[in-house]
């Protein structure tokens, strides 16, 4: 809800510099809600430091923060790898879903439907137990760590969703564009490469970024199969400190960390969508 409220303000703030050119820059900075929040937080911390009344929970949190951030980095790594892998596979499957061969289309359709409609937690358990914990290849033994399995588990729904986004983007290009390119003597492959694909990339970017944000949030499930991510670190911290107020505080911190990472992506997505709505393709 706070999210919506801030989003709603965004256009108004964008318009502000033009609407009130006489307003001094410093005054506008003072009105920034993010700065106000930051200043208030700093003031409280300074007050605690000065009077020596810092609550125990806050002090513990400060101690644990580096570990939490290291944990968050694991989540980010997993999300980037999963989405990279899922996108690569998804683009291939999306292209196959437009294949002229009926059997291929049906097979891809089954894959997409199966993994788009599967709960992500189930997929993570599925990949965790389907794959062995190490692999033997001739005389070498490779470990198969849990975080790789989580990457695979998250890459499955990503690929299914990317395939669908890609198919939708291709089909949203009007048939008239194909006809126009044909009349200019383009070959089928050339039309795809020079006319259809470039238009698809623009259309795919916002839903793809949404997907990335949602996969990042799902990486929090990795802790359930033993990956030392930010949620796992929070659990360890909460058990070690063993104070109710610290436990509440640490999970609030987790919320704030995920928000701080995912919210800018959501903002960027909206900005892209807005730009495409105003100057974008209008066939």
């Amino acid at each position, binding site marked *: 809800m706070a999210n919506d409220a801030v989003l709603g303000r965004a256009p108004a703030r964008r318009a502000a510099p033009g609407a009130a050119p006489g307003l001094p820059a410093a005054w506008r900075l003072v009105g920034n809600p993010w700065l106000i929040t930051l200043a208030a937080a700093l003031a409280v911390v300074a007050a605690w430091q000065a009077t020596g009344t810092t609550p125990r929970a806050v002090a513990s949190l400060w101690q644990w923060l580096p570990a939490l951030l290291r944990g968050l980095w694991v989540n980010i790594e997993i999300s980037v790898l999963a989405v990279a892998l899922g996108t690569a596979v998804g683009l291939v499957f999306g292209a196959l879903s437009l294949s002229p061969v009926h059997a291929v289309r049906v097979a891809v359709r089954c894959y997409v439907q199966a993994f788009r409609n599967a709960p992500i937690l189930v997929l993570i358990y599925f990949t965790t137990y389907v794959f062995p914990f190490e692999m033997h290849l001739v005389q070498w033994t490779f470990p198969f760590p849990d975080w790789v399995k989580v990457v695979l588990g998250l890459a499955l729904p990503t690929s299914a969703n990317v395939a669908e986004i890609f198919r939708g983007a291709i089909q949203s290009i009007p048939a*008239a*564009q194909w*006809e*126009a*390119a*044909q*009349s*200019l*003597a*383009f*070959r*089928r492959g*050339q039309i795809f490469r*020079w*006319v259809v694909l*470039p*238009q698809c990339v*623009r259309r795919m970017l916002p839903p793809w970024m949404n997907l990335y944000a949602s996969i990042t949030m799902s990486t929090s499930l990795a802790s359930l199969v033993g990956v030392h991510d930010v949620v796992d670190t929070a659990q360890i911290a909460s058990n070690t400190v063993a104070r109710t107020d610290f436990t509440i505080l640490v999970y609030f911190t987790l919320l704030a960390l995920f928000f701080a990472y995912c919210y800018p992506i959501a903002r960027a997505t909206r900005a892209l969508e807005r730009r495409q709505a105003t*100057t*974008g*393709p*209008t*066939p």
Partner: protein
Amino acid sequence: MKRDDIPLAGLAPAADTVTPAAAPLVHLQDVHLSFGDNAVLKGIDVQVRRGEAVSIIGPSGSGKSTVLRCITGLLRPQRGEIVVGDTLVHTLHTEAALIALRKRVGFVFQQYNLFPHLTVLENLVIAPTRVVGRDRAEARNEARALLDKVRLSHKENAYPGELSGGQQQRVAIARALAMRPELILFDEVTSALDPETVGEVLTVIRDLVKDGMTCVLVTHEMRFAEEVSDRVYFTEAGRIVEHGPAAQIFGDPRSPRTREFLQRALGEGPRTRETPASPPLAFNQLRFAL
């Protein structure tokens, strides 16, 4: 052969100004085409000589646009012969053969169909460079010259979405010209435009006809068809009802169907006659009229 006996605006040439010996550039004979059970073309015969402007007029749904799509191989008739130059279009089956044909035949669509992700200049350059393999710098120079010709040189870096309908349609004409076609097909190119911008597009087409480009126009702009065409075909329900020199079709139609159609088309809402000397009425002047 190039025409050098172009009359000034408003007068169509008499039939005998075209040498009868000239072999037609486009020749359609007994073309039949149906979509499922819906017969759209029921035996169409059309001939277009090199350097000639031919208009196809008729009520909506009479198959006018379908004829154009058959000429450039976008649609395949079930029966009949289509010849463009020395190419037997109705026998083409491979993509390569159709591409060889389309390099020679330009097509301008009712809805412009520009490539929205490319600038105006890139829209003109992409086909000559990617399809014909022409040198990029040369193609850009030629594109600039064409934009100048359609009076849009100041818009070369704009995107199609930033242009008005009339401007987009002029870019589309320039895009077709960039392939140096022998023949251009115009498919109701002013039907999607507001009356303000129809004139600027017609001016461009009029210039092309004067330059001797072979043009086939499907149009609802009767006055323009009368002024610019050498010959006119009147189609109805998938058949050619009547054809002949523009002056005869518009001045003395033989078929009662043609007469009736023209009466309705020209009687209702008389359109202002577009000539290069009289530009379309500016919008603010229209407000005074109200």
